[in-house]
């Protein structure tokens, strides 16, 4: 099972993520999104913070979760690589995320991801213990 796959889109970029559980799915979606921003090998530790988001269903929760991480990247200036989902219900997610303060000498930022959109967003259990999610980003 691949953790994620990048989808072609004429103007923007899509992402499909996989997970054996929905917790793993949400963590892999975050990894996939950060792979668009910077190579994970360039990121060490040194920064950690809890993240909590609410949503109206799994799709809303996924979009809100990814947008919260984009906010951290831009406002707190951190690149993230480790996502531990501690609680995940239909309307609530709690996680601990880890990464490193942005260092322009060390981290080669590939592009700006402006936002995660709701366009064609999907979160589904395609078979027992196999979850799949799909989102598109505004680049």
């Amino acid at each position: 099972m691949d953790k994620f796959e990048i989808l072609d889109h004429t103007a923007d970029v899509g992402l499909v993520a996989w997970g054996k559980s929905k917790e793993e799915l949400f963590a892999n979606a975050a990894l996939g999104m950060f792979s668009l921003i910077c190579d994970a090998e360039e990121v060490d530790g040194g920064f950690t913070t809890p993240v909590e988001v609410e949503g109206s269903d799994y799709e809303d929760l996924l979009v809100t979760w990814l947008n919260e991480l984009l906010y951290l990247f831009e406002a707190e200036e951190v690149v993230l690589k480790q996502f531990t989902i501690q609680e995940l219900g239909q309307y609530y997610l709690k996680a601990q995320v880890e990464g490193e303060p942005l260092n322009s000498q060390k981290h080669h930022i590939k592009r700006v991801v402006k936002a995660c959109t709701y366009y064609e967003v999907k979160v589904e259990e395609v078979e027992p213990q196999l979850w799949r999610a799909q989102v598109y980003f505004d680049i």
Partner: protein
Amino acid sequence: MAEAWKGPLQKVDDWRWLIPRSYKKGMLTDGMIYASEKMISVIRKDQAPEQVANVACLPGIVGKSLAMPDIHWGYGFPIGGVAATEEKGGVISPGGVGFDINCGVRVIKTNLTEEEVKPHMEKLLSLLFSHIPSGVGSEGKLSFSIPELERVMEKGARYIISRGFGFGEDEENIEERGAMEGANPEAVSAKARERGKDQLGSLGSGNHFLELEVVERIFRPDLAEAFGLFPGQVIIMVHTGSRGLGHQVCTDYLQEMQKAMSRYGISVPDRQLACAPCNSPEGRGYFEAMACSANFAWANRQLITHWVREVFEQVFQKSAPALGMSILYDVAHNIAKWEEHEVEGKKMKLCVHRKGATRAFSAGNPTLPPHYRGVGQPVLIPGDMGTGSYILVGTELAMQETFGSTCHGAGRVMSRSEADRRSKGRDIAGELKERGILVRAESKATLREEIPEAYKDVGEVVEVVERAGISKKVVYARPLGVIKG
């Protein structure tokens, strides 16, 4: 790759293609795409026409769901989409504006010719590149306190000019005179402020750029003269928006409207089209916060203008007024606005959403500054990196058919990953230099994603709006040098 679109497109004439209301359930009106026959085969390659049909489902839509010839696959609205909704019963949709609120274009004129500028190009570009912050997460050189940021959100470019970054006459050459009414900083979240506050006065990355160009072809000499443009003249084009502030405002209100839609009994075919009634607390809140972001973007382009003038003053040892560095115009191409339009003989106040489309008001419009009222508004159409730009003027037909709107640029035809594959191993800056275009870029990856062949030919796009009669070509300007984020 994307799935091709197989729905119905009825040819109205050589430049107009109709998606009939009967195409799918929920459409409240027809869709109309402005394009040539050749473009239509490309447009059908992805789901952009479906998005035109989806927009036709928005409650309170007035007229048709429109798409300009630079239409391409977006999310929610297509890029190049225009839709107007009525005040009562109509909705406002953050997806109809997009994340980069008031992404737009400004052109600064000079009285210098290509011959005069050519010898200084390397120096000019280096200085512009070092004076104007660009790139991913770029931060402005000035820091603004929270009260100052609030003034920026309320008063946009006017506040920045009052702080000494510009001339009094600048404001009348900006759409909305650089500050949209109805902006209320209280509607902007702490997160949005946090994301935007250090980015005022920065170009950003992606398709944003600053370009030095030379006016090469004049299509309508009388209009060119009215705009103060002449052959061989060097002009500067600035393309950027509201940066992180706008992105967060859109994110915040999309989430809020997801929740609000069921309360208002609204359902839409795509969640990214989340919307709320214009007069609901959510709809009003979004408009107030969007206006704040739009004003931030006009302030941003004003600060950049100030630094462009400073660089030219330093290189040419003359003052900006002596160099003729006035603003031709400044247009927004991602915005929603309250405008008055005549619909079936009746004047209506409408919320016009333009997502990758430019306002193109014709002669006689009372909202235009006096010096353009007799000829119509300059419409600034950037091409992709390296192909040059067009300056158009709005027409009466656009007022009747498109709520005074036209195209906004070239429009992508190639995904970023395909552009990346096709440019592998190529020296993009070197290729452009051979064509006489100097490039300074913060990131090589951006250059590769933005290769000229990733875009439609802006010339073809402009030809369609001219032939369809919704704009007229005034001049074409060829690029001399580009700064990319």
